[in-house]
């Protein structure tokens, strides 16, 4: 669950406005670290 999805759960989807520039901005590429390919939060 992303921060935005979590926020939508907390305050209601209708109350969350995300600037289109942020919505379409690609995530920063993750640096590769040995042993870090698995993301435990997902």
């Amino acid at each position, binding site marked *: *669950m*992303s*921060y935005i999805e*979590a926020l939508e759960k*907390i305050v209601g989807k209708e109350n969350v406005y995300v600037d289109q520039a942020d919505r379409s901005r690609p995530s920063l590429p993750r640096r590769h*670290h040995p042993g*870090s390919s698995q993301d*435990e*939060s997902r």
Partner: protein
Amino acid sequence: MERFSRFKPKRLVTTCAGCYKTFKELYPKRSDLNVEALHIVEYIEKLISEGKLKFQKPYSVKVVYHDPCDLGRHMNIYEPPRKILQAIPGIELLEFKENRNLAKCCGGGGGFKAYNNELSGEIAYHRALEAIDLGAEIIVSACPSCKSSFQQASARLRKEKKGRLKVLDLTELVGEALA
């Protein structure tokens, strides 16, 4: 700052401990920014205390909270995240031996990860190992830098078969508890 002048918000809520410190302490001293800055843990705690946010379903899990340096030692915010966790039915809140103002760093603070990634990883790994020893299933923090550090540590714990530790930001955990 251009966006602030365009939207003129009265209140700013951030999920980042470092951003919170910047907007709460640094910008007001160095700019004419006039906005109430809150960290999301303060905001969620306010919603809970006002009865605007209620948890219906139990979320049975053992959670240990890691105090981010920027939120804890720098901004003295220790209790709101704990009150939020205690408000979620089913959660067993565990504490590190070193907690609140004595909490150890996650290893990623102050740009240290960029300076010495190997040592930064070791610091996070030992903190995550301590969480496993406590019996935690989830390590939760309120800082994206802590989350990133612990995600790498968690992956190493699993690779070395030392245990499984889920890593979440407190905002995400609250979202999951409401799902």
